[in-house]
């Protein structure tokens, strides 16, 4: 029975550029249809890309496209491994042009590239219409400017793009699982009514989409969950039969771990109701899933059940959200905690004195501050040693950049005007984008495949 092999080269924008190299080397030794996927498009990443495209219509695709693809494009083309990625971001056509240019630079000839467009709702809906759609997550956009609004496309457009014979498929906003399910629809010819097969394919995509999170990364907990050679962690490869048989493994000659525990952790990652995980292609039911170790670093996942998909599509709306200002300073050695607490109280008093109206969070890192709230209710209940190493952090959000900068500067001023031994100040003032999720009618997203042949 024919099998499809899907390797993952990145699980988020900023993942290791070279992680795909051992994946490609492994795929090259396997028979049949092979694919390399990269998932690099978080909600926020897309908003940033949309801003870049507005400044320059040629831009707006992943700024890391070259860094990722230059390492693998020639090898993939030589071995017939096809690439599917959402590096298209806000500009899949621009990304396709860039891949063709990169191929020329690398001496790769005869490359066919396809771009999937149609997720950009600003092209089919007015801003007013977008504001009227039902909200399922986040705050009402209100009257703040909409930076981007994109519907999550499903796997069908990816399969259509592969049917053109494209070697590289660039999409914008699709479900992360569609990067894997699209190739499976293409290879195995699963129809829209083969719900259990679509469910297995969606589970496959869900397990691959965060890269090494299924192969021992974001998992290691020394003494409890030990992972060999994490620095060389191998990225995942899925083997999928026409009957939905699904095995998760990883690139050969790498570190990391694939076992029941790594797979189950990722299976439930960012899932809410595991009996009804909604996607545009199928509603996934994980209630009867079995996860079995069948060999070293080989885990079979079976029993995913499918129900019909929802009528509407989820879409993400990105809105400008002002500025985040942060400043940090460290205290170490004898009596470090009282010195850090004094520094925190100085910053609070200064912010009050300056008339900053926005809530300012000032906390002492090293006291489980990360688990605490702005009001620091938890802090009071736990005791920590006075000596040691502690870091004071102040943070504020404001529509005005100067307020964000001012709070960060109050931490900087502790060098000369704070408690003894303050050291290692760092400041960050960053523009913020907030996101909300809405539901839209499927008619608003009209996927289209554009093929670019090598000139």
């Amino acid at each position: 029975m024919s099998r499809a092999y899907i390797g993952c080269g990145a699980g988020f924008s900023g993942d290791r550029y070279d992680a795909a190299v051992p994946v490609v080397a492994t795929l090259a030794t396997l028979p049949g249809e092979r694919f390399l996927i990269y998932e690099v498009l978080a909600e926020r990443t897309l908003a940033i890309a949309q801003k870049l495209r507005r400044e320059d219509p040629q831009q707006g695709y992943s700024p890391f496209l070259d860094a990722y693809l230059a390492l693998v494009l020639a090898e993939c083309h030589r071995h017939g491994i096809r690439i599917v990625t959402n590096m298209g971001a806000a500009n899949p056509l621009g990304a396709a042009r860039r891949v063709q240019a990169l191929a020329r630079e690398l001496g790769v000839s005869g490359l066919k590239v396809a771009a999937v467009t149609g997720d950009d709702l600003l092209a089919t809906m007015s801003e007013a219409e977008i504001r009227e759609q039902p909200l399922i997550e986040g705050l009402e956009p209100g009257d703040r400017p909409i930076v981007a609004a994109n519907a999550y496309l499903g796997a069908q457009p990816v399969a259509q793009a592969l049917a053109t014979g494209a070697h590289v498929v660039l999409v914008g906003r699709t479900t992360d699982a569609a990067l894997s399910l699209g190739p499976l629809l293409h290879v195995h010819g699963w129809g829209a009514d083969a719900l259990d097969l679509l469910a297995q394919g969606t589970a496959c995509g869900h397990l691959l989409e965060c890269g090494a999170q299924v192969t021992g990364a974001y998992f290691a907990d020394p003494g409890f969950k030990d992972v060999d050679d994490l620095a060389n962690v191998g990225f995942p490869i899925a083997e999928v039969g026409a009957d939905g048989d699904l095995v998760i493994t990883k690139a050969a000659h790498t570190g990391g771990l694939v076992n029941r525990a790594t797979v189950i952790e990722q299976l439930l990652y960012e899932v809410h109701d595991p009996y009804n995980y909604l996607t545009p292609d199928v509603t996934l039911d994980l209630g009867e899933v079995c996860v079995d170790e069948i060999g070293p670093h080989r885990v079979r996942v079976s029993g995913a059940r499918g129900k019909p998909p929802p009528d509407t599509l989820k879409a993400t709306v990105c809105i400008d959200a002002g500025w985040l200002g942060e400043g940090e300073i460290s205290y170490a050695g004898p009596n470090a905690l009282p010195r850090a607490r004094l520094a925190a109280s100085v910053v609070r008093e200064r912010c009050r004195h300056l008339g900053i109206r926005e809530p300012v969070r000032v906390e002492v890192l090293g006291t489980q501050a990360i688990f605490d709230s702005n009001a620091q209710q938890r802090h009071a209940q736990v005791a920590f040693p006075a000596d040691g190493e502690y870091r004071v952090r102040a943070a504020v959000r404001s529509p005005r950049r100067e307020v964000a900068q001012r709070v960060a500067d109050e931490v900087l001023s502790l060098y000369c005007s704070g408690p003894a031994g303050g050291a290692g100040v760092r400041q960050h003032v960053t523009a913020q984008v907030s996101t909300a999720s809405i539901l839209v009618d499927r008619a608003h997203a009209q996927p289209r495949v554009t093929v670019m042949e090598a000139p």
Partner: protein
Amino acid sequence: MNEVEVALHEVAHARAGDKGNRSNISVIPYRPEAFPHLAAQVTEARVLALLAHKGATACRRYLLPNLPAMNFVIDDALEGGVNFSLCLDGHGKSLSFLVLGDIRVRVPADCIGAARR
């Protein structure tokens, strides 16, 4: 079999994720025989109480006896989430270890475990 009281971290592993201001935290026993004990003791109310200081308003637990595992979905657990929170961890990714560290359970001693390599 002797019962022992331990932090959940001795018995289970966990992973946290976010969507907006909603957190989901999976809890997965190292040994399947621990599952009924966790199902009886790691309740929606306890997880909700653990995140009350962050503003959590509701907690729903989904049991997956087949795996076995459980998945908690906690509303308003992230001080606004990554869009609005002033917390260093706006995604709430570290909250899996808050659950593993602060929730204590009584289990038979042979339920204590660790993952195989």
